[in-house]
């Protein structure tokens, strides 16, 4: 394909290790299979390759990226390459010293996760006391003049506190609040029945968010990502497979999407064997769902195919067992009933939650 676009953004998942045990962890199942982590020199080489390939933004994430001892060094490398660097953290191990080292190294922006505005609920959802540490991390980041995005993942257990969550973001003086509903992949799929909200919850929260977005427009930017299970059409996952985005997992596997690891039909290349350029342009995994030729009906002849690119491949696999079908979230999908069924089940569910650990 001669017209393959170059990637804009790299998600650098430095480690799957994390002090939190979130119910909706986006990392893949069976983490124990991926314990090996690539070393500093390899990450530095890969950041260079990413820059040459056209990557503009690098997003350091995990797991908890602060658990990598070479994080400051990697941020320095990104800065030298003139990459814009973001860091996504739980804030758990964010000391004043570490944050100021990162600032010094040239880190551009910080995202701190918050599980709920209610401290007890936050700590329950993370299965570890963490609320106070997040308060402190945001305060320290503010002192260092970082641009801060507060990330709150939404679901049944915190959606009714949406107003308090927004008020808290205003009080903490963050620049941006990202309110994204759980994506039901990774560990979140495991807890789906316990996490899916009710439709009336989703609707009333959306009204509150719309109102607050207007009301606080002079001081807080709010990004609201609606839950795709309740939408008519699927999300434009990644803006298309292998189109603008790539992920490197802690062990060096290169993935079109961080959730793609769960698709057993795919074998992923690694940075230990090939250059990023070879992988992006030539590897079968990146070709597999790139463009429009792979699409089945109803996507193939659908006018929305350039809007949503057939939706999420990981979701198609998780719901139907086949990653190459239309995302069942789409009302035009022959498998759409699977989504309706999941919503109906969740509405009656008193399912027990299972917390994430590094061993599951």
């Amino acid at each position, binding site marked *: 394909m001669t017209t393959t676009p170059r990637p804009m953004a790299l998600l650098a998942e430095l480690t799957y290790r994390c002090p939190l045990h979130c119910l909706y962890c986006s990392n893949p199942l069976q983490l124990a299979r991926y314990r090996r982590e690539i070393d500093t020199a390899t990450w530095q080489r890969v950041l260079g390759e990413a820059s040459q390939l056209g990557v503009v933004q690098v997003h350091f994430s995990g797991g908890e990226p602060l658990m990598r001892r070479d994080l400051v060094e990697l941020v320095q490398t990104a800065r030298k390459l003139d990459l814009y660097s973001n860091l996504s953290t739980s804030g758990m191990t964010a000391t004043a010293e570490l944050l100021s080292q990162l600032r010094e190294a040239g880190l551009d922006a910080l*995202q701190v996760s918050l599980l709920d505005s209610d401290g007890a609920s936050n700590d329950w959802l993370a299965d570890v006391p963490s609320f106070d540490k997040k308060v402190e991390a945001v305060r320290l980041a503010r002192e260092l003049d970082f*641009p801060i995005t507060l990330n709150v993942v939404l679901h049944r257990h915190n959606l009714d506190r949406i107003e308090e969550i927004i008020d808290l973001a205003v009080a903490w003086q963050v620049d941006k609040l990202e309110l994204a509903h759980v994506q039901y992949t990774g560990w979140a799929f495991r807890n789906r029945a316990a996490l899916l909200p009710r439709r009336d919850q989703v609707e009333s929260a959306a009204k509150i968010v719309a109102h607050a977005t207007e009301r606080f427009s*002079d001081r807080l930017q709010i990004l609201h990502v609606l839950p795709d299970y309740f939408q008519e059409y699927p999300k434009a996952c990644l803006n298309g497979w292998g189109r603008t985005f790539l992920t490197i997992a802690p062990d060096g596997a290169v993935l079109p999407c961080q959730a793609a690891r769960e698709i057993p039909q795919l074998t992923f290349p690694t940075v230990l064997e090939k250059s990023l350029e070879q992988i992006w342009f030539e590897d079968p995994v990146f070709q597999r769902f790139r463009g429009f030729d792979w699409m089945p009906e109803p996507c193939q002849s659908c006018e929305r195919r350039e809007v949503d690119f057939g939706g999420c491949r990981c979701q198609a696999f998780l719901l139907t067992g086949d990653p190459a079908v239309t995302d069942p979230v789409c009302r035009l999908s022959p498998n759409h009933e699977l989504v309706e069924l999941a919503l109906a089940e969740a509405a009656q569910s008193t399912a027990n939650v299972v917390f994430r650990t590094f061993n599951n």
Partner: protein
Amino acid sequence: MKNNAKPLQRPRLARGVRYRWDEVRSQHQLLYPEGLLVLNESGAAIVKLCDGRALEEIKQSLTMSFPQAELTEDPKFTEDVEEFLGRLMQRGLVCHDDNA
């Protein structure tokens, strides 16, 4: 204040916003957390001057960069620069210099 209608006196790039020349795409870019805006030549020239200096000074410097337009005497030029900065301000990419 992002939606402030007051004319910009000393515009500067907001926190976390930075200009970058993209070698791979031969492109001027304005980067911010999780986003990017592609700039044309004049946009890039304006943005590079947004360091807290006075708007008048920015216009003067631009005249030197683009002398063919005989700009400072042309009211449309002033409007264009201010409109461009106003749009960036609305998106939260440019703000007033607090220390001005």
